[in-house]
């Protein structure tokens, strides 16, 4: 029985190290951030934010795999949900702003000054 259990152990085929996934996530995150920082179109900036969120998700999931439990998945799940909400509100705002200003370029929307 013990032997059987040993046999039922996972086959030791070489696996992709989690580090790769994390590197991918990092790259994704940085690209998103880059976009957020350099693009002027509010919509695109939003997309980049989505990218960053995904990077985060990827990290969660990767760690979940690494630790072998579901927590990361749950977090990712919530992140997705929140991202949906965020997107809805954000896009609504973009629309509102476009209505009022006729543009979605951030330099046209410098309302944060005074």
């Amino acid at each position, binding site marked *: 029985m013990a032997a059987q259990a040993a046999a039922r152990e996972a086959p030791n085929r070489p696996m992709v190290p989690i580090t790769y996934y994390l590197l991918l996530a990092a790259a994704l995150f940085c690209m998103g951030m880059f976009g957020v920082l350099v*693009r002027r179109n509010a919509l695109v900036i939003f997309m980049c934010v989505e990218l960053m969120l995904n990077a985060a998700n990827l990290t969660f999931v990767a760690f979940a795999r690494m630790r072998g439990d579901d927590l990361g*998945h749950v977090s990712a799940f919530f992140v997705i949900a929140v991202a949906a909400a965020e997107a809805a509100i954000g896009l609504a705002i973009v629309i509102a702003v476009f209505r009022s200003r006729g543009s979605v370029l951030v330099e046209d929307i410098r309302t944060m000054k005074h």
Partner: protein
Amino acid sequence: MNIELVLFGAFALLTLLSAGTVIFARSPINSAMALVSTFFFLAGIYVLLWAHTIAVMQVLVYAGAIMVLFLFVIMLLNLGESPTRGKPTLARVAGGAATVGLFAVLAIILLKLPAEPATLSLDAQASFGTIATMGEVIFTRWLLPFEAVSLLLLVAMVGAVVVAKSRI
């Protein structure tokens, strides 16, 4: 040379490529499309990580719902190509540089940290990341956050309507 690594490499490459397109595409519509592909390839990566549920959700929620939102908005505002590349202000240059630097540093750190996937028993593998297991945790241990999120979504919906509507 195993199949998993190959798949990972492929997906990762494509993900990064489409992500790059998202950032650099001139017209928003292209960015949006690239984003969709990014989501899809990420879903693939999730599968490689045995996170089937998340992969599915990724496709459904992101590639499905969110993207549609984006596209609608783009159509709605019929945004053409952004006329010019906008003058590179100090902020942008600095920010860009910072992100590059950030990636470099992160990379160094990550490479220093050895991280191996856990080895799971077969039945553990069988149940890992399935709807069943996730549903179980979400509806038992994470019930309250779950409900909170549902509420959040509701609020977001109403908020979106209120904000976006020209006159109520």
